[in-house]
């Protein structure tokens, strides 16, 4: 169920718009086509099946309630959906962080090193462009951006994981983001 082809993207946009008009059948079809992708995203960030299931459920209940606000001129449906699931997962991670403040050792997870696409994952043209731009970054900065994106870690957590001062991590990421914008925007 790839969402990398333009035709598939259009179809997802249409389904999300229909869901926004209370079309339950379209919503069910949208779930069928996108839930595996979103579940993969949640699992990657949360590392816990039960939590990922809860976040996935929250995500789609929000999708149903907010689908009317989806604007395909601003973002494609898949971008909107992935963003929503990431936001929910990040909220969950931040909640945990507060619960874990008494035991900061738990925050120092190992660096999630998976720079290449998962086996079998198809990538879009957008990804391929982004990948080219990422490769122009310093290796450490590139891996920090990926680590941040895939784990939803804060600056503090990233600095601890990569064993660099907080200020260094902030400047790596900020410089990378600005460089990416310059590289990506025509």
């Amino acid at each position: 169920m790839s969402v990398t082809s333009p035709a598939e993207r259009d179809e997802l946009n249409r389904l999300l718009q229909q869901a926004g008009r209370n079309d339950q059948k379209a919503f069910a079809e949208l779930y069928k086509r996108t839930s595996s992708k979103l579940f993969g995203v949640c699992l990657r960030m949360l590392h816990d099946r039960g939590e990922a299931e809860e976040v996935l459920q929250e995500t789609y209940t929000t999708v149903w309630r907010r689908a009317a606000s989806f604007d395909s001129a601003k973002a494609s449906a898949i971008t909107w959906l992935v963003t929503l699931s990431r936001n929910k997962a990040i909220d969950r991670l931040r909640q945990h962080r507060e619960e874990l403040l008494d035991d900061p050792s738990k925050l120092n997870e190992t660096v999630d090193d998976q720079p290449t696409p998962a086996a079998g994952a198809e990538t879009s043209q957008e990804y391929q462009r982004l990948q080219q731009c990422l490769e122009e970054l310093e290796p450490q900065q590139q891996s920090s951006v990926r680590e941040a994106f895939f784990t939803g870690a804060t600056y503090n957590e990233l600095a601890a994981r990569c064993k660099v001062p907080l200020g260094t991590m902030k400047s790596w990421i900020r410089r990378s983001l600005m460089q990416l914008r310059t590289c990506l925007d025509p």
Partner: protein
Amino acid sequence: MNTPFEDGNNLRYAEYVLGVLDADTRAEVAREVAGSDEAATAVALWQRRLIPLADTIGEVAPAPYVWARIQDALQLEAPARVTPRKGLWDSLELWRWLGIGATALAAALLVVVSLPRPTPAPAVVNAGYMASTIQQDNGSAGWTATMDLEHARMVVVPATPVSFEQGRAPELWLIPAGGKPISVGMIDRDKPTTLALDPALLAQLGPTAVLAVSVEPIGGSPTGQPTGAVIGKGAIGAAPNAGGRVALTGHGQADRTRV
């Protein structure tokens, strides 16, 4: 925001999309996005730039009960089914796997097709099947339960007829992890039973729940909780995938055979 870059605000939107901000700053940016078109547009642009990274994340199919829970949470009415999927329910392999012979198969299918339809089937689209082998305490299989989540029904097939005292019958329970048993219904000791699964029950089905059978008075436990001995238990798992199919079942029949 104090940054070495001229475009601090835009940078903050990028950091928000990337996900590196702490809880308070995230909440601030989220409020800004909700209140300002300019902020929303800037954030959308960063999403378009960065979210393609998610392409590299492999897909993982969520368990079917997640969709059942979403439907339950949203109180969605039963929509028409999306696609007539090739059903495991219709599969000969499944019934072979269940270990029942042609006669029992015919009996089970007769039960499935001939029952009246008391309520519209709560449609669970994209759902699959779950199965459980309910082991008796002596180690032999007591019943095999197959749950068809799409049609919200369960068929419970006895492996071998189990004997009961006069006036006693088996009752099936669903026990959620850390929760109290929920009655699924009375089941037969010597032939397949089909039970309808209401949405509340459906939402509890999953690998953390177990099925159990207890010995109860013929009409069922008088208290709503098991009162007699528990004679069998089984974990719930995904049903084995099946290739072939037999076109024998009555589609869309919600079934209830409370004995």
